[in-house]
């Protein structure tokens, strides 16, 4: 039996070789996996079990100057739908029934192109519990549909100060693509007004947690816990009481205009400011809108409505985004400039015959009072808003050739941004020779600056454009010793404990360097307007002396526009107010009474609505 061993030897060798080959093969493969590709697999293993979970940070609140909530947050049940569901007609029909919402509306929201291609679209917010329960219980019938708790903005004061507050909405593709954009899909960011201006402080920091999850995605342990940091609360300079009065007065002015046979009046703006600090106490614009429309994403229909001419662009904050002729309110500027230039003096007299031919017979111009004011001093010219007086002064500026009127107006902030901390302001226009030449670049025959241009500017017409805020700023400057404070709506930023971490301090935006004597003269003149002049009807019986000026602007193709701008008390001025009513008629009868109510609110006086009749400019 011994030879079987010899026979077997090579066979054992083969078997041994097979064993070595098998183990060698395994070892080589394991070496590749663990040593050569190890780091790559280590990363995969890490990706497998470590997930980043982010928690939304609550957006900061917006408070009025007295700590009253203007904007806060509230949780809502929202139904979101994956964009891929757009073609699932059966699903949309089921959703339509459950949400009691037309299929077309659902489709429109799911089809929204404002969001990332794959991000779920919010279809409905404030979904009733019954619908939430139904969708949750019938999950399989609603593929791609999810019910989520979302935080949305809450407006405890309704649409109060809507234009100041602005609105917030889901971050857009372009905002996401900005370099170092801190946002991710679905973030709510400020889109307009204070929400946009103070986005950086209102927006909190998302909480970022690294959690270990198992194969089924269940959370095991928290590796890194980055708590969300809530956005800061912002305190505005707005006084919600004054704001409410302002909005009401503006609305009432519309009605007054309608009664005075100016049926087209529906748009306007009013602003109240603290002249010493530049704090905006109230800012209103009509027509206004309901910020709630933006919750959960605005519908196409509502967006069209808010941005259309037919509804007079309710989103536009006319106080800073609209520009108008200043009309007679500009006479205070012309007057002051004339005093400063020595072209006039308080005692200078003018003869108003109702028609003025200072530039020659063929260039005759009329005073708004065609009967003529007769003999008028400079002071009376302001009081009565006599055009002839200012034609004369304006013509004097023209003959001087120094564009001193324009330069003076610019020293009060006209033709430039006011610097207000709200987005979208426009800078108006102070027309001068250089502007006219470039504006009419292609029409050489219109390029020359004519005497009439300066004369028109002197009464606030012609090519002059101002925003209501600029006008207000100029008067606040007159009241404040010639210094225009930078207007602002932010007062403080609060930390989580409610302690201010940032407060705005008054800042001079424009120093007109006007002589105090001339300012005082102008104040006296403006005070006479509400006492005995064009503003008398609006301020009759008002307990505090008010300095101001009415204005009635002529706009081609439209009804006259009513303006009033002024400040009070005359002796120690504190607040300035401007009211502009598009196609509202006369400043004294429509804008003045509104301004009276707003000033009353600022000064803590009794708020009275007076009916004034006035046909002046």
């Amino acid at each position, binding site marked *: 039996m011994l030879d079987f061993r010899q026979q*077997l030897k090579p066979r054992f060798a083969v078997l041994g070789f097979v064993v070595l080959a098998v183990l060698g093969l*395994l070892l080589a493969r*394991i070496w590749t996996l*663990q040593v050569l590709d*190890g780091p790559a*697999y280590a990363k995969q293993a*890490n990706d497998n*079990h470590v997930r980043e979970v982010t928690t939304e940070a609550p957006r900061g609140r917006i408070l009025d100057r007295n700590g009253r909530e203007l904007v806060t947050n509230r949780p809502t049940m929202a139904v979101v739908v994956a964009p891929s569901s757009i073609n699932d007609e059966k699903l949309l029909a089921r959703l339509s029934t459950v949400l009691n919402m037309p299929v077309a509306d659902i489709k429109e929201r799911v089809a929204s192109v404002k969001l990332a291609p794959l991000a779920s679209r919010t279809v409905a917010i404030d979904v009733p519990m019954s619908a939430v329960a139904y969708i949750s219980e019938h999950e399989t019938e609603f593929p791609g549909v999810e019910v989520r708790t979302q935080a949305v903005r809450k407006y405890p004061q309704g649409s109060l100060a809507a234009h100041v507050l602005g609105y917030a909405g889901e971050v857009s593709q372009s905002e996401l693509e900005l370099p170092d954009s801190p946002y991710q899909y679905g973030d709510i960011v400020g889109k307009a007004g204070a929400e946009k201006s103070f986005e950086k402080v209102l927006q909190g920091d998302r909480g970022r947690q690294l959690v270990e999850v*198992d194969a089924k995605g269940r959370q095991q342990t928290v590796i890194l816990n980055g708590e969300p940091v809530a956005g800061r609360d912002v305190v505005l300079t707005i006084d919600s009481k004054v704001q409410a009065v302002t909005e009401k007065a503006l609305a009432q002015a519309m009605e007054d205009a309608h009664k005075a046979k100016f049926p087209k009046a529906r748009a306007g703006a009013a602003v109240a400011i603290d002249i010493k600090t530049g704090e905006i106490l109230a800012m209103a614009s009509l027509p206004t809108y309901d910020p709630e429309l933006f919750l959960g994403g605005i519908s196409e229909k509502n967006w069209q409505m808010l941005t259309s001419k037919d509804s007079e662009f309710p989103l536009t904050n006319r106080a800073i985004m609209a520009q108008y002729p200043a009309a007679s309110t500009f006479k205070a500027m012309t007057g002051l400039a004339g005093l400063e230039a020595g072209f006039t003096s308080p005692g200078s007299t003018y003869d108003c015959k109702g028609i003025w031919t200072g530039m020659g017979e063929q260039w005759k111009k009329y005073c708004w009072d065609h009967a003529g004011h007769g003999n008028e001093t400079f002071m009376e010219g302001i009081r009565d808003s006599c055009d002839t007086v200012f034609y004369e002064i304006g013509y004097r500026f023209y003959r001087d050739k120094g564009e001193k009127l324009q330069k003076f107006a610019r020293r009060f902030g006209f033709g430039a941004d006011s610097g207000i901390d709200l987005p979208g302001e426009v800078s108006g226009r102070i027309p001068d020779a250089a502007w006219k030449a470039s504006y009419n670049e292609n029409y050489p025959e219109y390029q020359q600056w004519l005497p009439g241009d300066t004369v028109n500017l002197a009464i606030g017409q012609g090519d002059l454009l101002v925003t209501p805020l600029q006008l207000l700023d100029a008067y606040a400057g007159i009241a404040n010793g010639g210094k225009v404070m930078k207007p602002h709506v932010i007062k403080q930023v609060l930390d989580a404990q409610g302690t201010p971490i940032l407060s705005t301090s008054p800042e001079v935006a424009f120093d007109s360097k006007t002589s105090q004597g001339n300012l005082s003269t102008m104040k006296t003149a403006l005070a006479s307007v509400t006492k005995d002049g064009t503003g008398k009807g609006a301020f009759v019986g008002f307990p505090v002396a008010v300095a101001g000026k009415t204005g009635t602007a002529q706009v081609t193709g439209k009804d006259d526009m009513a303006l009033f701008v002024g400040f009070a008390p005359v002796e120690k001025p504190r607040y300035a107010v401007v009211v502009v009513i598009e196609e509202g008629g006369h400043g004294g009868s429509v804008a003045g009474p509104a301004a009276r109510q707003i000033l009353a609110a600022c000064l803590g006086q009794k708020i009275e609505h007076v009916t004034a009749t006035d046909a002046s400019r």
Partner: protein
Amino acid sequence: MNERKRLWFINWPLLIAVTALAVYGSLMVQSATAGMPGGPGLFRRHLLGLAIGLVPMVVVWAFDYRTLQGWIGPLLLMDALLILSPRIPGLGATAKGATSWLSVAGFRLFQPSEPAKLLTIVVMAAVIATYKGKIERPADLAKVLGILAVPLALIMLQPDLGTGMVFVAITAGMLLIGGLKPRWFLILGIVGFILVGGLLSLNTALDKALNRDVLIKQYQLDRLQVFVDPTRDPKGAGYNLEQSKIAIGSGELTGKGLGSGTQSNLRFLPEPHTDFIFSVTAEELGFLGAVILLGLYLALLIISLEIAASSRDLFGSLIVAGVMTMWTFQILENIGMTIGLMPITGIPLPFMSFGSSFMVTNLAAVGMLLSVWTRRQGVSGY
């Protein structure tokens, strides 16, 4: 020298290697089951399997293997009965699509196909030993293949593709030692290839004709297809392989530490204590751990080869060669599948994987090796 004294002729290296593997395995099973619901219970069952396995090991060792050479008929019958037993109404239990458990009153006892492997080895060794180291007549080969066919057919009916492959590998190893000419291996390979191809076609045709999943189950085909391209279905059949590779790869050189494997503890890895115990080992102990394990297997297999060579008769050599081929193939298949070298089948890793039937069978196999060693050439009295 009497029987008692002869038992002292122990192959210590074998026992040391097996003990080391069993300890290593227990360590890994403990780590893999620690995070599972009922983990400690599973670990205790593993230790119990080890303890129980010592009984058949000692009994088989004490038993003179040579006696078995004359029992071909009864052993083959027993083999068939064992494999068939789960099919007996009231005794079978089905897990993962295969009716491979013997169960009494709903309690799963063991998988009869495990001890059946050893019986098949013994029967086949007995038959091949009669050819005196030369398998030249086709009739002899046919007889051996016939013996393979009985358990193989029954196993494939369970169906258990992996175990079937083990039987084929064992047969190949024993035919090699038994003296089958190389060209016959070639012929068998070609015939096998054609048969498998034919079977797959037949399977497809039958599935279509009967509109039912017959013969080879769909999941088995899926596994095979995934083996070819694991990325084609990362969350389905390919998921297991992908996660196993991530586990092993992420272990890198020194591993994440015992009990700290994220892939296994967070259950990304399927069956971490049974089929994928190697993945756990490689993840937690790294390449060094894998090298140690392969080193222990190399020792085990080389010692086995030495025992096979030292046998006093061809029968003993064949038994040892069979056991050795069985282990080699199982190591190749199990580790191979975790690293994407082999298709995924439910083959456990010898001495490492959780599973009592498997552990007991392997310990009994160690008993057989010891039995051959103790009665080897040159030992007085034999």
